[in-house]
């Protein structure tokens, strides 16, 4: 077996038994990155940095004083500030930005011994569902459509580089961020595991701000257990983020393998939306049967305000984005376009040149929704609807322990198929945005390939701060689904 096909758990065992070194493990991934450069997963590769970190890991393995993630090569979504390593958010406006500080989540992962292979591509400022808005070009999914092998599939977004890289074995795990589905949807489209924890579980400090009341960090890996292990180190209270929770972080790996007998699984009526492809419904039904076979009890629930979640999200998200992105003014960091006019001319030209079309669109929608005369009709209205959506979940959790839904309304689509229709693109998040609006944890687990060879998965939604039940039930689904497909099966790798 190639070193890049190992799980994180397997790699840690191999490193401890000295079957291979951390340098060898990292080099295997660096070679894979070179071989699959066409997927455009990485914006900035940091092979030298990873090998230096790996050499330090090898010293610790030699001395026996090892760390929990020692030598495990990770990719970092290029929205996490990394000290001394360029951080672009896939935007021209930060094309040459080199942070002088390290985000809390990445500093915790590296303190646990993980190495950094590079910075992963994403939708510009994490605004997108297909990784087609990046200034650094589209990310291409490693999966192929059987019926149209020449068609390039999207990896989903916004964490498209992270998802594609983990699926393509170009890193063992990756960080992501999830504002409306940006971890769970790309995980589903690329056949891997992705977790967005409860709002407040991970520090947002050092992550480029997008929509602050919705943004949450999370992790990708290829197994539920690996994801749980990474989440142990990504989570935790941080003085530097006032919304980060002081709650203790449990050892999430302990949940994996625990029985789900007697757990109540909520199936929301409102998620059976019109026009949902048969294969998505069928996969959902399979999930229900798997959970039943493991001893869980199925409960019908209602989340009556679901249909208002997307319009609510597309007020709150652009409003917060327009406010957060006001900082890009060409003065303190980033691009400046100064053609000799006054200060306002410089601001306007810098922002017109630095932001791509989707970012400009959201800033303008947000600016409008927050402007005098419209604030109550849009922004306050959305905040009220947001409360109703939260209350839907609170009521549902009186009857069930977690909720099972599809993660996305379709399998991966082709590059270019939806990018010209913003509302069509926004609909990709129909099953994921509710979770961000309510601040809940969500987990995507891969389950099958569809008849065309494209991955399908399931989403589990938990109670606030109950990631453990999701890992427990996610591992049960993983065991039943036994998803073993490899995007390069038949490849010489």
């Amino acid at each position, binding site marked *: 077996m190639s070193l890049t096909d190992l799980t994180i758990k397997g790699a840690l065992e191999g490193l401890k038994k000295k079957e291979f070194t951390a340098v060898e493990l990292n080099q295997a991934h660096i070679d894979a990155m070179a071989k699959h450069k066409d997927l455009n997963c990485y914006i900035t590769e940091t092979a030298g940095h990873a090998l230096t970190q790996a050499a330090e890991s090898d010293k610790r393995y030699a001395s026996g004083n090892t760390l929990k993630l020692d030598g495990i090569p990770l990719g970092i979504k290029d929205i996490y500030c990394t000290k001394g390593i360029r951080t672009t958010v896939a935007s021209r406006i930060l094309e040459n930005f080199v942070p002088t500080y390290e985000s809390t989540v990445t500093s915790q992962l590296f303190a646990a011994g993980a190495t950094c292979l590079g910075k992963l591509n994403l939708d510009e400022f994490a605004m997108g569902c297909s990784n087609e808005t990046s200034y650094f070009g589209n990310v291409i999914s490693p999966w192929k459509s059987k019926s149209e092998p020449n068609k390039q599939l999207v990896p989903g977004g916004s964490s498209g580089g992270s998802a594609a890289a983990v699926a393509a074995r170009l890193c063992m795990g990756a960080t992501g961020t999830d504002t409306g589905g940006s971890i769970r949807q790309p995980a589903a489209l690329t056949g891997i595991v992705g977790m967005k924890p409860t709002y407040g579980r991970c520090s947002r400090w050092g992550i480029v701000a997008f929509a602050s009341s919705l943004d949450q960090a999370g992790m990708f890996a290829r197994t539920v257990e690996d994801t749980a292990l990474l989440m142990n180190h990504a989570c935790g209270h941080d003085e530097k983020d006032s919304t980060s929770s002081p709650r203790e972080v449990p050892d999430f790996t302990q949940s994996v393998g625990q029985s789900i007998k007697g757990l109540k699984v909520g199936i929301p009526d409102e998620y059976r939306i019109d026009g949902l492809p048969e294969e998505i419904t069928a996969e959902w039904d399979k999930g229900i049967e798997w959970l039943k076979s493991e001893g869980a009890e199925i409960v019908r629930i209602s989340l009556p305000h679901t249909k208002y979640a997307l319009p609510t999200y597309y007020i709150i998200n652009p409003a917060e984005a327009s406010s957060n992105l006001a900082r890009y003014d060409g003065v*303190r960091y980033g691009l400046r376009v100064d053609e000799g006019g006054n200060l306002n001319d410089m601001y306007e030209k810098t922002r017109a040149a630095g932001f791509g079309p989707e970012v400009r669109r959201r800033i303008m929608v947000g600016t409008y929704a927050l402007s005098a005369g419209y604030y109550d009709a849009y922004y306050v209205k959305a905040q009220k609807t947001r409360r109703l959506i939260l209350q839907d979940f609170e009521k549902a959790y009186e009857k069930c322990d977690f909720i099972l839904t599809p993660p996305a309304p379709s399998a991966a689509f082709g590059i270019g198929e939806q990018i010209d229709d913003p509302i069509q693109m926004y609909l990709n998040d129909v099953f994921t945005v509710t979770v961000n609006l309510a601040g809940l944890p969500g987990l995507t687990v891969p389950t099958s390939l569809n008849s065309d060879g494209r991955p399908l998965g399931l989403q589990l939604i938990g109670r606030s701060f109950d990631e453990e039940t999701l890992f427990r039930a996610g591992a049960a689904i993983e065991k039943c689904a036994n998803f073993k497909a490899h995007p390069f099966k038949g490849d010489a790798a």
Partner: protein
Amino acid sequence: MSKISKEEAKRIAKLARIAVTDEEAEKIGPDLSNILGWIEQLAELNTDNVEPLANVANIDLKKRKDEVTDGDMQQDVLANAPESMEGFFVVPKVVE
């Protein structure tokens, strides 16, 4: 339903400090109208007695002593500035 005119589009762009040409403003109007029209389905929902929800983090913001906890990082602060001079950010002339 909101119809955003070309003039309204220019006003929004101005508020957002994003330069737009006349041709761009022509396209922005219908684009924003389309999205806002879709968003306006919220109007059908009665929210009369609902408190707005600003943030789901159920955390009491902690107080701390008002004291300096870091500093002395002028070089770090200026490291990514497009233009700086003698420890300051440089901007186009603001005061005539």
